[in-house]
Protein backbone atom coordinates (compact mmCIF):
# COMPACT_ATOMS: atom_id res chain seq x y z
CA UNK A 1 0.00 0.00 0.00
CA UNK A 2 2.62 2.49 1.10
CA UNK A 3 4.86 1.27 -1.66
CA UNK A 4 2.36 2.11 -4.42
CA UNK A 5 1.71 5.51 -2.88
CA UNK A 6 5.36 6.46 -3.00
CA UNK A 7 5.73 5.02 -6.48
CA UNK A 8 2.86 7.17 -7.73
CA UNK A 9 4.33 10.21 -5.99
CA UNK A 10 7.68 9.64 -7.68
CA UNK A 11 6.06 9.08 -11.07
CA UNK A 12 3.92 12.20 -10.78
CA UNK A 13 7.03 14.23 -9.98
CA UNK A 14 9.00 12.62 -12.81
CA UNK A 15 6.29 13.20 -15.39
CA UNK A 16 5.61 16.80 -14.44
CA UNK A 17 9.33 17.62 -14.29
CA UNK A 18 9.71 17.91 -18.11
CA UNK A 19 6.80 20.35 -18.17
CA UNK A 20 8.26 22.53 -15.44
CA UNK A 21 11.73 22.41 -17.01
CA UNK A 22 10.18 23.33 -20.34
CA UNK A 23 8.50 26.39 -18.84
CA UNK A 24 11.84 27.61 -17.57
CA UNK A 25 14.14 26.66 -20.45
CA UNK A 26 11.87 27.43 -23.47
CA UNK A 27 12.88 24.62 -25.85
CA UNK A 28 12.27 24.90 -29.63
CA UNK A 29 8.68 24.78 -30.82
CA UNK A 30 8.60 21.19 -32.09
CA UNK A 31 10.10 19.85 -28.87
CA UNK A 32 7.76 21.85 -26.66
CA UNK A 33 4.73 20.59 -28.62
CA UNK A 34 6.01 17.03 -28.19
CA UNK A 35 6.61 17.51 -24.47
CA UNK A 36 3.13 18.93 -23.92
CA UNK A 37 1.47 16.20 -25.98
CA UNK A 38 3.19 13.42 -24.07
CA UNK A 39 3.40 14.74 -20.56
CA UNK A 40 0.11 16.56 -20.00
CA UNK A 41 -1.98 13.33 -20.08
CA UNK A 42 0.75 11.31 -18.32
CA UNK A 43 1.32 13.76 -15.49
CA UNK A 44 -2.40 14.31 -15.00
CA UNK A 45 -2.84 10.53 -14.79
CA UNK A 46 -0.20 10.16 -12.09
CA UNK A 47 -1.31 13.26 -10.20
CA UNK A 48 -4.82 11.81 -10.23
CA UNK A 49 -3.42 8.54 -8.88
CA UNK A 50 -1.89 10.45 -5.98
CA UNK A 51 -5.05 12.46 -5.35
CA UNK A 52 -7.51 9.59 -5.57
CA UNK A 53 -9.37 8.12 -2.65
CA UNK A 54 -8.00 4.76 -1.56
CA UNK A 55 -9.17 2.00 0.77
CA UNK A 56 -7.85 2.74 4.24
CA UNK A 57 -6.84 -0.72 5.43
CA UNK A 58 -5.52 -3.90 3.91
CA UNK A 59 -8.76 -5.70 4.76
CA UNK A 60 -10.82 -3.18 2.79
CA UNK A 61 -8.49 -3.58 -0.15
CA UNK A 62 -9.00 -7.35 -0.16
CA UNK A 63 -12.75 -6.95 0.14
CA UNK A 64 -12.74 -4.62 -2.83
CA UNK A 65 -10.65 -6.93 -4.97
CA UNK A 66 -13.12 -9.80 -4.54
CA UNK A 67 -15.73 -8.16 -6.71
CA UNK A 68 -15.04 -8.36 -10.42
CA UNK A 69 -17.58 -8.22 -13.16
CA UNK A 70 -17.14 -11.91 -13.87
CA UNK A 71 -17.42 -12.81 -10.23
CA UNK A 72 -21.14 -13.39 -9.90
Amino acid at each position, binding site marked *: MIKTMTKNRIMSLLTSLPLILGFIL*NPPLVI*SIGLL*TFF*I*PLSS*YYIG*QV*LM*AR*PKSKKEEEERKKITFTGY
Partner: protein
Amino acid sequence: MIYPATNSMLYLFLEIITASLFAGLLLGLHRKVIARIQRRPGPPLIQYMLHTLKFFIKELTIPDTSSMPLYVAIALALAGAWVLAFLVGPVLLGPYIIIIMCYAVHKVSEHGIGLATGSPYAKFGSSRAVLSATSEMPLVVAPALVFVRTNSLILQDIINYQIINGSLVNQLPLAALATFILVITKTPFNPFGIVYGKDIISGFKTEHFGVIRGVLMFGETLAFFVLLWCFLVIFFGGVINTPLTILLAMIGVTFILGFICALTPMVAPYHSVMIQWIFALLAIANVLLI
Protein backbone atom coordinates in the same frame (compact mmCIF):
# COMPACT_ATOMS: atom_id res chain seq x y z
CA MET B 1 -1.61 41.12 -17.41
CA ILE B 2 1.91 39.86 -18.13
CA TYR B 3 2.17 38.13 -21.48
CA PRO B 4 4.58 35.20 -21.88
CA ALA B 5 6.65 35.25 -25.05
CA THR B 6 4.83 33.97 -28.12
CA ASN B 7 5.40 30.28 -28.90
CA SER B 8 7.15 29.67 -25.58
CA MET B 9 6.05 26.53 -23.80
CA LEU B 10 4.28 28.44 -21.03
CA TYR B 11 2.23 30.26 -23.67
CA LEU B 12 1.15 26.96 -25.23
CA PHE B 13 0.29 25.54 -21.82
CA LEU B 14 -1.83 28.55 -20.87
CA GLU B 15 -3.66 28.22 -24.18
CA ILE B 16 -4.50 24.60 -23.40
CA ILE B 17 -5.79 25.53 -19.94
CA THR B 18 -7.91 28.37 -21.34
CA ALA B 19 -9.38 26.26 -24.12
CA SER B 20 -10.24 23.31 -21.90
CA LEU B 21 -11.89 25.54 -19.29
CA PHE B 22 -13.81 27.46 -21.94
CA ALA B 23 -14.93 24.32 -23.75
CA GLY B 24 -15.97 22.86 -20.40
CA LEU B 25 -18.20 25.89 -19.87
CA LEU B 26 -19.55 25.48 -23.41
CA LEU B 27 -20.47 21.85 -22.76
CA GLY B 28 -22.19 22.97 -19.55
CA LEU B 29 -24.10 25.59 -21.53
CA HIS B 30 -25.00 22.90 -24.04
CA ARG B 31 -26.58 20.80 -21.30
CA LYS B 32 -28.36 23.84 -19.91
CA VAL B 33 -29.88 24.67 -23.32
CA ILE B 34 -31.07 21.10 -23.75
CA ALA B 35 -32.64 21.19 -20.29
CA ARG B 36 -34.41 24.49 -20.94
CA ILE B 37 -35.90 23.17 -24.18
CA GLN B 38 -37.17 20.15 -22.31
CA ARG B 39 -38.60 22.49 -19.61
CA ARG B 40 -36.26 21.44 -16.81
CA PRO B 41 -34.07 23.83 -14.81
CA GLY B 42 -30.95 21.89 -15.82
CA PRO B 43 -27.58 21.64 -14.10
CA PRO B 44 -25.38 24.67 -13.38
CA LEU B 45 -23.03 25.86 -16.13
CA ILE B 46 -19.96 24.44 -14.43
CA GLN B 47 -21.42 20.94 -14.14
CA TYR B 48 -19.17 19.42 -16.82
CA MET B 49 -16.08 20.80 -15.14
CA LEU B 50 -17.21 19.57 -11.74
CA HIS B 51 -17.65 16.12 -13.24
CA THR B 52 -14.14 16.18 -14.68
CA LEU B 53 -12.67 17.30 -11.35
CA LYS B 54 -14.72 14.71 -9.50
CA PHE B 55 -13.22 11.90 -11.56
CA PHE B 56 -9.69 13.01 -10.64
CA ILE B 57 -10.26 12.16 -6.99
CA LYS B 58 -12.33 9.01 -7.53
CA GLU B 59 -10.79 5.61 -7.00
CA LEU B 60 -9.36 3.92 -10.07
CA THR B 61 -9.71 0.18 -10.33
CA ILE B 62 -8.32 -1.67 -13.29
CA PRO B 63 -10.31 -4.78 -14.31
CA ASP B 64 -8.47 -8.10 -13.97
CA THR B 65 -9.46 -8.97 -17.51
CA SER B 66 -7.95 -5.87 -19.11
CA SER B 67 -4.86 -5.86 -21.28
CA MET B 68 -2.19 -3.78 -19.59
CA PRO B 69 -0.62 -1.27 -20.28
CA LEU B 70 -2.89 -0.74 -23.25
CA TYR B 71 -5.84 -0.06 -20.94
CA VAL B 72 -4.18 3.08 -19.56
CA ALA B 73 -2.01 4.13 -22.49
CA ILE B 74 -4.73 4.21 -25.10
CA ALA B 75 -6.93 6.49 -23.00
CA LEU B 76 -4.02 8.86 -22.49
CA ALA B 77 -3.34 8.71 -26.23
CA LEU B 78 -6.81 10.12 -26.89
CA ALA B 79 -6.12 13.15 -24.69
CA GLY B 80 -2.63 13.53 -26.15
CA ALA B 81 -3.96 13.48 -29.69
CA TRP B 82 -6.32 16.35 -28.96
CA VAL B 83 -3.61 18.34 -27.19
CA LEU B 84 -1.53 18.00 -30.37
CA ALA B 85 -4.51 18.91 -32.57
CA PHE B 86 -5.26 21.95 -30.45
CA LEU B 87 -1.66 23.18 -30.49
CA VAL B 88 -1.22 22.67 -34.24
CA GLY B 89 -4.65 23.98 -35.23
CA PRO B 90 -6.12 26.81 -33.16
CA VAL B 91 -2.89 28.01 -31.53
CA LEU B 92 -0.16 27.82 -34.18
CA LEU B 93 -2.40 27.81 -37.31
CA GLY B 94 -0.42 24.94 -38.82
CA PRO B 95 -1.44 22.33 -41.39
CA TYR B 96 -5.03 21.11 -41.17
CA ILE B 97 -3.97 17.64 -42.26
CA ILE B 98 -2.47 17.03 -38.80
CA ILE B 99 -5.94 17.52 -37.32
CA ILE B 100 -7.19 14.78 -39.67
CA MET B 101 -4.48 12.54 -38.27
CA CYS B 102 -5.44 13.41 -34.69
CA TYR B 103 -9.04 12.52 -35.44
CA ALA B 104 -7.84 9.19 -36.80
CA VAL B 105 -5.92 8.58 -33.57
CA HIS B 106 -9.07 9.50 -31.67
CA LYS B 107 -11.06 6.85 -33.54
CA VAL B 108 -8.32 4.25 -32.99
CA SER B 109 -8.29 5.11 -29.29
CA GLU B 110 -12.06 4.75 -29.02
CA HIS B 111 -11.72 1.30 -30.54
CA GLY B 112 -8.82 0.34 -28.31
CA ILE B 113 -10.41 1.69 -25.14
CA GLY B 114 -13.40 -0.55 -25.67
CA LEU B 115 -11.40 -3.62 -26.59
CA ALA B 116 -8.70 -3.39 -23.93
CA THR B 117 -11.12 -3.97 -21.08
CA GLY B 118 -12.29 -7.40 -22.23
CA SER B 119 -15.82 -6.49 -21.22
CA PRO B 120 -18.53 -7.46 -23.73
CA TYR B 121 -20.38 -4.17 -23.18
CA ALA B 122 -17.32 -2.08 -23.98
CA LYS B 123 -16.77 -4.30 -27.01
CA PHE B 124 -20.14 -3.23 -28.39
CA GLY B 125 -19.06 0.38 -28.10
CA SER B 126 -15.72 -0.29 -29.75
CA SER B 127 -17.34 -2.19 -32.62
CA ARG B 128 -19.57 0.81 -33.17
CA ALA B 129 -16.49 3.05 -33.04
CA VAL B 130 -15.04 1.13 -35.98
CA LEU B 131 -18.35 1.36 -37.79
CA SER B 132 -18.70 5.10 -37.24
CA ALA B 133 -15.09 5.68 -38.29
CA THR B 134 -16.09 4.77 -41.85
CA SER B 135 -18.41 7.74 -42.07
CA GLU B 136 -16.64 10.20 -39.78
CA MET B 137 -13.28 10.04 -41.57
CA PRO B 138 -14.81 11.35 -44.86
CA LEU B 139 -16.47 14.10 -42.82
CA VAL B 140 -13.09 15.15 -41.37
CA VAL B 141 -11.78 15.42 -44.91
CA ALA B 142 -14.60 17.84 -45.84
CA PRO B 143 -12.78 20.95 -44.51
CA ALA B 144 -9.66 19.82 -46.37
CA LEU B 145 -11.60 20.14 -49.64
CA VAL B 146 -11.07 23.91 -49.44
CA PHE B 147 -7.62 23.04 -50.84
CA VAL B 148 -9.26 23.29 -54.27
CA ARG B 149 -9.85 27.01 -53.65
CA THR B 150 -7.05 28.09 -51.36
CA ASN B 151 -4.28 25.85 -52.75
CA SER B 152 -3.05 25.49 -49.22
CA LEU B 153 -4.08 23.58 -46.15
CA ILE B 154 -2.04 25.68 -43.73
CA LEU B 155 -4.72 27.31 -41.58
CA GLN B 156 -2.97 30.68 -41.63
CA ASP B 157 -3.14 30.71 -45.44
CA ILE B 158 -6.82 29.72 -45.36
CA ILE B 159 -7.59 32.66 -43.06
CA ASN B 160 -5.58 35.04 -45.24
CA TYR B 161 -7.41 33.82 -48.36
CA GLN B 162 -10.75 34.46 -46.70
CA ILE B 163 -9.81 37.93 -45.49
CA ILE B 164 -9.06 38.85 -49.12
CA ASN B 165 -11.75 36.86 -50.97
CA GLY B 166 -14.58 36.61 -48.45
CA SER B 167 -15.67 33.63 -46.40
CA LEU B 168 -15.46 30.20 -47.95
CA VAL B 169 -18.99 29.31 -46.82
CA ASN B 170 -20.29 31.28 -49.80
CA GLN B 171 -18.21 29.24 -52.22
CA LEU B 172 -18.45 25.78 -50.66
CA PRO B 173 -21.68 25.73 -48.61
CA LEU B 174 -22.10 21.94 -48.67
CA ALA B 175 -18.58 21.35 -47.37
CA ALA B 176 -19.43 23.71 -44.52
CA LEU B 177 -22.59 21.68 -43.86
CA ALA B 178 -20.56 18.46 -43.73
CA THR B 179 -18.18 20.06 -41.23
CA PHE B 180 -21.15 21.12 -39.13
CA ILE B 181 -22.35 17.51 -39.09
CA LEU B 182 -18.86 16.57 -37.87
CA VAL B 183 -19.16 19.08 -35.03
CA ILE B 184 -22.54 17.60 -34.13
CA THR B 185 -21.05 14.12 -33.94
CA LYS B 186 -18.60 15.27 -31.29
CA THR B 187 -21.16 16.93 -29.00
CA PRO B 188 -22.73 14.95 -26.15
CA PHE B 189 -26.31 13.67 -26.61
CA ASN B 190 -26.07 14.01 -30.39
CA PRO B 191 -28.20 11.98 -32.82
CA PHE B 192 -25.13 10.30 -34.38
CA GLY B 193 -23.48 9.36 -31.08
CA ILE B 194 -23.91 5.64 -31.50
CA VAL B 195 -20.56 5.09 -29.78
CA TYR B 196 -21.73 6.69 -26.54
CA GLY B 197 -25.24 5.25 -26.74
CA LYS B 198 -27.08 4.59 -23.50
CA ASP B 199 -28.55 1.49 -25.12
CA ILE B 200 -25.12 -0.11 -24.85
CA ILE B 201 -24.34 1.24 -21.35
CA SER B 202 -22.40 4.36 -22.38
CA GLY B 203 -20.41 2.50 -24.99
CA PHE B 204 -16.67 2.18 -24.97
CA LYS B 205 -16.32 4.07 -21.69
CA THR B 206 -18.27 1.51 -19.68
CA GLU B 207 -15.25 0.13 -17.84
CA HIS B 208 -13.31 3.39 -17.55
CA PHE B 209 -13.66 5.38 -14.36
CA GLY B 210 -11.45 7.26 -11.96
CA VAL B 211 -8.53 9.26 -13.25
CA ILE B 212 -8.65 7.76 -16.73
CA ARG B 213 -12.22 8.96 -17.20
CA GLY B 214 -11.12 12.41 -16.06
CA VAL B 215 -8.35 12.49 -18.64
CA LEU B 216 -10.79 11.26 -21.29
CA MET B 217 -13.22 14.05 -20.46
CA PHE B 218 -10.38 16.58 -20.65
CA GLY B 219 -9.59 15.24 -24.12
CA GLU B 220 -13.21 15.56 -25.16
CA THR B 221 -13.39 19.22 -24.13
CA LEU B 222 -10.37 19.94 -26.34
CA ALA B 223 -11.93 17.91 -29.16
CA PHE B 224 -15.10 19.97 -28.98
CA PHE B 225 -13.08 23.20 -29.01
CA VAL B 226 -10.88 22.15 -31.96
CA LEU B 227 -13.73 20.95 -34.18
CA LEU B 228 -15.89 23.99 -33.43
CA TRP B 229 -12.89 26.19 -34.16
CA CYS B 230 -12.25 24.43 -37.47
CA PHE B 231 -15.86 24.86 -38.54
CA LEU B 232 -15.89 28.54 -37.68
CA VAL B 233 -12.48 29.57 -38.95
CA ILE B 234 -12.22 27.48 -42.11
CA PHE B 235 -15.64 28.51 -43.40
CA PHE B 236 -16.36 31.88 -41.75
CA GLY B 237 -12.77 33.10 -41.52
CA GLY B 238 -13.57 36.34 -43.36
CA VAL B 239 -15.54 37.58 -40.38
CA ILE B 240 -14.48 35.37 -37.49
CA ASN B 241 -10.72 35.58 -37.20
CA THR B 242 -9.85 37.16 -33.85
CA PRO B 243 -9.91 35.32 -30.50
CA LEU B 244 -12.85 37.38 -29.17
CA THR B 245 -15.06 36.83 -32.23
CA ILE B 246 -14.15 33.14 -32.29
CA LEU B 247 -15.12 32.62 -28.64
CA LEU B 248 -18.37 34.58 -29.04
CA ALA B 249 -19.28 32.65 -32.20
CA MET B 250 -18.59 29.41 -30.35
CA ILE B 251 -21.18 30.36 -27.73
CA GLY B 252 -23.67 31.05 -30.53
CA VAL B 253 -23.02 27.74 -32.29
CA THR B 254 -23.32 25.92 -28.96
CA PHE B 255 -26.87 27.29 -28.65
CA ILE B 256 -27.71 25.89 -32.10
CA LEU B 257 -26.11 22.55 -31.21
CA GLY B 258 -28.17 22.47 -28.02
CA PHE B 259 -31.37 22.90 -30.03
CA ILE B 260 -30.36 20.15 -32.47
CA CYS B 261 -29.36 17.69 -29.74
CA ALA B 262 -32.48 18.35 -27.69
CA LEU B 263 -34.91 17.86 -30.53
CA THR B 264 -33.47 14.84 -32.36
CA PRO B 265 -33.62 11.20 -31.26
CA MET B 266 -30.64 8.85 -31.45
CA VAL B 267 -30.30 7.36 -34.91
CA ALA B 268 -29.74 3.63 -35.42
CA PRO B 269 -26.09 2.71 -36.22
CA TYR B 270 -26.46 1.98 -39.93
CA HIS B 271 -28.76 4.96 -40.48
CA SER B 272 -26.27 7.20 -38.71
CA VAL B 273 -23.48 6.02 -40.99
CA MET B 274 -25.65 6.46 -44.08
CA ILE B 275 -26.72 9.99 -43.16
CA GLN B 276 -23.15 11.05 -42.48
CA TRP B 277 -22.01 9.51 -45.76
CA ILE B 278 -24.69 11.44 -47.63
CA PHE B 279 -23.40 14.73 -46.22
CA ALA B 280 -19.79 13.79 -46.97
CA LEU B 281 -20.68 12.88 -50.57
CA LEU B 282 -22.59 16.15 -50.95
CA ALA B 283 -19.45 18.01 -49.87
CA ILE B 284 -17.30 16.13 -52.38
CA ALA B 285 -19.89 16.73 -55.12
CA ASN B 286 -19.93 20.42 -54.25
CA VAL B 287 -16.19 20.64 -54.76
CA LEU B 288 -16.12 18.56 -57.95
CA LEU B 289 -19.00 20.36 -59.67
CA ILE B 290 -17.89 23.94 -59.10
